[in-house]
């Protein structure tokens, strides 16, 4: 458990629900994330974990309930106020989402150029510092299409921490990467949260990663929170959903088939 965790609530979700086309994707979700902790949201594909992340970053608004970021309800504020809060966010996207038309250093410098009045020389120094933090120097003038997936993730991370945010959201940070690079990204997440006292919210289904980085874990299934606990509590849980998920078992309460249709019946026999 990290030493930097305080009891200050950075993010609070209270009774949050979200519907898409009449289907309830997020169902009455409640949890708090504390300052300095690494909070991991895990669940199967389509369980609603990425939707939770998009709700917390204000990209979509909840249909029911409230989302508080440092006490401010982001589901009830206008876009200008939300943008003010977003300046203290960082987000690492699943596929990095670097702007293709900008080079590595221009991508990292983008939030600084847009939101600060810093001199261009200072911006250049900050960009170098941030790229050093993620261990990526010498690629400043490369375009995102010319570097590997792992490097792109690290550039995305450098961009996410460019404005010294207090929360960084990670959407599947290790997916699509080989185990070594995945381990490097996990170490970076841990290091950044220790060095920069960042609160990290990570959405993933990579179990190795969960147990490496998490201070607390929330298991999501069909839009609901099954359990919130420490990695130890999750590992030792008797909950059937959690057991099936962490052991990757095909049999169990998590059903991967939408409906059991009798083929003979379907073909009219």
């Amino acid at each position: 458990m990290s030493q930097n965790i305080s009891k200050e609530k950075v993010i609070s979700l209270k009774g949050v629900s979200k519907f898409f086309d009449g289907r309830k994707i997020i169902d009455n979700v409640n949890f708090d994330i504390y300052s300095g902790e690494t909070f991991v949201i895990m669940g199967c594909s389509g369980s609603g974990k990425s939707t939770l992340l998009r709700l917390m970053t204000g990209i979509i608004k909840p249909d029911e309930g409230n989302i508080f970021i440092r006490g401010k309800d982001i589901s009830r504020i206008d876009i200008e106020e939300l943008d003010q809060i977003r300046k203290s966010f960082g987000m690492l996207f699943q596929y990095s989402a670097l702007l293709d038309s900008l080079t590595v250093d221009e991508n990292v410098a983008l939030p600084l150029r847009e939101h600060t009045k810093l001199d261009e020389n200072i911006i250049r120094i900050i960009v170098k510092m941030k790229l050093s933090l993620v261990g990526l120097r010498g690629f400043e003038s490369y375009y995102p299409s010319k570097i590997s997936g792992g490097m792109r993730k690290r550039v995305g991370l450098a961009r996410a921490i460019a404005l010294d945010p207090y929360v960084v959201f990670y959407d599947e940070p290790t997916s699509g990467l080989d185990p070594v690079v995945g381990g490097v990204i996990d170490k970076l997440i841990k290091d950044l949260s220790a060095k920069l006292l960042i609160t990290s919210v990570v959405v993933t289904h990579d179990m190795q990663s969960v147990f490496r980085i998490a201070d607390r874990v929330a298991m999501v299934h069909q839009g609901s929170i099954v359990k919130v606990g420490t990695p130890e509590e999750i590992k030792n849980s008797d909950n059937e959903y959690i057991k099936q998920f962490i052991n990757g078992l095909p049999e169990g309460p998590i059903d991967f088939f939408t409906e059991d249709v009798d083929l003979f019946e379907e073909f009219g026999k």
Partner: protein
Amino acid sequence: MVTRVGRFILDIFKGAKGIGSLFIQIVYWIVFGPFKKKTAKLESIFYQMGFAGLRSIVIVFFVAIFTGIVLAMQSAYQLEKMGAVIYVASLVSISLCRELSPVLTALVVAGRVGSAIAAELGTMKVTEQIEALETMAINPIRFLAVPRFLALFFMLPCLTVVGNISGIMGGFIVGSGSLNINPYLYMQTSFKYLELKDVYTGLLKSFVFAMIIALIACFEGLNTTKGAEGVGRSTTRSVVISFILIILADCFLTAIFYFSNI
């Protein structure tokens, strides 16, 4: 069938509402952005002007010059019978400046630049780049749509002037070459009946066409869904809708200019 027609009409209204809202937001950022110290970056506007304007000159030149050549030959075919072949010059210059050059240039630019904008913004949308801008508190309309809108707004009329000149040159080649009209007389007749209003009504049209191309391309790009297939669909839709709206707007504007005697 009825539901399909109903859905089609509903889609048109939804699209019109979305494009209207995009237009208002673009105008808002152009007018009020400087007061908030949040403007589109100048280098971005210049880059887009280079892409939309400078790099379209060659295709506009070729389209206009050949249109001028064809127009001169076709009108000479009729006018020769009346012994009025000299009037090919003024016919070419007036029809190009008033009508053909603004419309053809707009169609070429809609195909070349509008499609590129829709595809670029569409790819950015499906690869989460637009979402990334939003989470960085960077308004995608200010950052992406405004420079493209301004670039097209200023460059399309310039390209139309290039089209006017190249078209008249095309007519001149036919007139002084195969129709044996004295080159000096040809040029004199070209501009004798060409009034200033013929040129500026054409340019006025091109400003409207530029707005249509930019709005449709940005709207389609920013509303792309469903991955690579969606990008293709947005690109096609942006070109098809721009073409239809350019012709429609041309019809309305010509009617307005005609009936108000401009």
